[in-house]
């Protein structure tokens, strides 16, 4: 089967999208405020520019104060790293959100069905809807997961799906995160800051609350517990204080009221999972893990791992505990397999995808590769095995030398790369860097959106998500490791 038969696009044209103008989330092409943003814009315009600048300052100060409470974790130098925050909110009207929500649930269900299938019967491969070697060859495929059944059929309890808004105003899926997606604590913290900065505006606009996320998460985790347990015990497994997301682990465990455990707190006895408490061993039914597959169980994965617990895989296989997310879910967010996700939705759900994906070309296909290499400066090239924006080459802004390097690397291991046409990420008015002489100026910066979807007995979507903003002028990379910041996302109620 080749790419075209599977419905995968082959680039036969110069990527015209590169010249498309990105849309502005708050203003239309005529410079008029979009209806859902009119009140926010009027409010901001009515503020004196010094007060507007002050908004940024106050946000920064509040984050520093709160930042002390979260960044000193794991930072033995006592320093503070703050995820930069922009106080201009990103607005999503109720109607748009309803569409997104349906699309996100559809997507999470299909990805979940895919994981269940490939570690079970493998029907999708037998039916030829996705190449076998692409699945088995994925660095995220885990043989150890084969045959492990999850209660409720849920493998992906938590999904973070990265969306970008194109020149046509539609949200497209840029990538999925179905291993241990992070960032939700910032969504909640950002909102806490904004309710102090702009309380009257939040009330007037009827912004959906994000405070319910921990309760949603706990409910979902309890629902996927092994059958017959009336009051399951949930614990959150962290790699420990030196992990960059440790703040979030503490935050979520505290908000959910569950124990925050490390590998050394756990023990498997008689194919059951326990934590070591001062009053003896206590059974755990659902483990919300925030460590990677490779470190989970030294018996099955990396034998040198001290972060996991020996025997966990056997406990899961015996059906005596549920792991959220399950082992091997990463295969569903593999950047190469991403190209097949629309096909997956059709295959498992018999539905048309509600959310389009950013066109994705697999460079392992010689024909596709030749086409992409011809116009490499029009594409974004991503290594399939990396995340966090590392190793990404953006054609239009790359130097000749960088392009040449990319060519060499692609030639050496074509299956390790995908290419996407340069996507005109929407821009959003942003205060960052716009303060001059005490006066505030709003500048346009590229944004994306990471909403969070939970699967349990029923799906739940957090009304909002993490809006990441590329603070550097012209930059398309929003990752915090690459100079990105975040904004509060306001989903409006009907």
């Amino acid at each position, binding site marked *: 089967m080749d790419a075209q038969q599977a419905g995968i696009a082959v680039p036969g044209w110069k990527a015209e999208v590169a010249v498309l103008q990105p849309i502005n989330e708050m203003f239309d092409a005529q410079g008029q405020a979009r209806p859902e943003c009119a009140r926010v814009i009027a409010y901001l315009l009515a503020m004196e520019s010094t007060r507007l600048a002050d908004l940024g300052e106050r946000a920064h100060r509040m984050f520093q104060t709160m930042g*002390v*409470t979260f960044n*000193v*974790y*794991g930072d*033995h*130098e*006592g320093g503070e790293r703050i995820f930069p925050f922009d106080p201009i909110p990103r607005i999503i009207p109720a109607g748009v959100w309803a569409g997104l929500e349906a699309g996100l649930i559809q997507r999470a269900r299909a990805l979940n069905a895919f994981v269940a299938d490939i570690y079970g019967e493998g029907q999708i491969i037998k039916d030829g809807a996705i190449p076998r070697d692409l699945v088995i060859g994925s660095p995220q495929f885990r043989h150890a997961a084969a045959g492990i059944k999850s209660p409720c059929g849920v493998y992906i309890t938590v999904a973070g799906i990265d969306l970008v808004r194109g020149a046509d105003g539609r949200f497209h899926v840029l990538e999925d995160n179905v291993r241990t997606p992070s960032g939700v604590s910032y969504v909640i913290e950002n909102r806490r800051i904004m309710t102090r900065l702009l309380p009257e505006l939040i009330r007037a606009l009827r912004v959906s609350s994000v405070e319910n996320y921990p309760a949603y998460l706990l409910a979902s985790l309890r629902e996927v517990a092994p059958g017959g347990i009336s009051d399951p015990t949930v614990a959150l497994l962290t790699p*420990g*204080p030196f992990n960059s997301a*440790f703040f979030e682990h*503490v935050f979520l*465990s*505290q908000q959910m009221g569950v*124990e*925050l*455990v*490390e590998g*050394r*707190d756990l023990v498997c006895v008689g194919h059951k999972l326990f*934590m*070591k*408490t*001062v*009053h003896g061993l206590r059974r755990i039914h659902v483990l919300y893990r925030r460590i990677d597959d490779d470190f989970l169980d030294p018996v099955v994965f990396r034998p040198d791992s001290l972060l996991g617990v020996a025997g966990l895989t056997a406990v899961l296989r015996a059906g005596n505990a549920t792991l959220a997310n399950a082992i091997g879910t990463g295969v569903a967010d593999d950047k190469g397999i991403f190209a097949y996700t629309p096909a997956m939705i059709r295959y498992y759900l018999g539905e048309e995808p509600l959310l389009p994906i950013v066109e994705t070309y697999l460079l392992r296909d010689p024909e596709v590769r030749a086409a992409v290499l011809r116009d490499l400066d029009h594409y974004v090239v991503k290594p399939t095995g990396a995340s966090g924006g590392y190793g990404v080459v953006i054609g239009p802004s790359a130097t000749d030398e960088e392009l040449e390097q990319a060519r060499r690397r692609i030639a050496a291991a074509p299956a390790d790369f995908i290419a996407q046409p340069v996507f005109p990420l929407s821009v959003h008015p942003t205060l960052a860097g716009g303060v001059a002489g005490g006066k505030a100026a709003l500048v346009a910066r590229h944004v994306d959106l990471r909403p969070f979807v939970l699967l349990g007995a029923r799906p739940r979507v957090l009304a909002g998500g993490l809006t990441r903003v590329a603070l550097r002028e012209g930059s398309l990379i929003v990752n915090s490791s690459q100079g990105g910041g975040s904004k509060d996302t306001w989903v409006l109620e009907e």
Partner: protein
Amino acid sequence: MLRRIAGSLFWAARYLERAQWRARLVDVNYHLLLEVPPRDAEPWEPLVWITAEQELFATLHSHVTEASVIDFYVFEKENRSSIRNCIESVRANLSPLRHLISSDLWLAVNRLYLESHGWTAQTLSAAGVSAFFADLQRHFYTIEGIIVNTMPRDMAYDLIEIGTMLERPDNVSRLLDVKYHYLLPRQEEIGGPADLRQWAAVLRSASAFEAFRKVYGNAVRVDRVVEILVFDPAFPRSIRFGIERLARVLARIAAREDEPAPRSLPCADLLKILRAGSAPQTIADGLHEFLIGIEAMCARLAGHVFDRYMSLE
């Protein structure tokens, strides 16, 4: 509560107590030597004996001087029990479980840590020894006050108590032992002015001088010092007081457990000895042997508590 967390609370408390104790030792010795010009060649040497760190000290310094001992006690990064390292250990133990302690406690510990982190060799001379230790003591009192006033009396609080009460008797015992056996310069007589000044310094090191005077007046006598520091049921830094408190904490934890309470607490033997003993008799029988015995029993008790509530094995 997870056993790992129990261990962290226990060690945080021990290191806090140790840092505080060491700060007092150095402060008192410094002031003692200000008042009385030393006749000994190395009047700071006993401090290294008290904490049994002669070997480590010798690897770092060739001479026992005021500067080298203070440096070793307060700032030395190679010394796990230097005040700086103790403070760092308190913070490192509490940091991952900040969500379980009051934010006031965390902020106070972190403030002390950040301050200690900025210490250099010049800090002491710039601030002056007295002001430096007075400031340090204020930090410790603040932290203790926050613990007592903001923490619910649950397992977390109990473990802090256990850590403190296992560290304290050990320190008192060593202080007494060293003074009793090694400290007096040869040419001085027992009960002479130098001897009495040293016993007064011992009391001050245990913050016991004022309490002592209230009970016994000005007449400092060896048996009375031993009485107040070992057998006194009312003085908060006496060995007996600490073990009595420990017994109450262990009983409280046992009562909270689902299992039936043990018939006798692991500290029952120790308690019996401390309740029955008296200073004159103990001195007559040999104070050194007695204190060695107490230290061994404390170590066994610590081992028992560790196995019971903290060990991950």
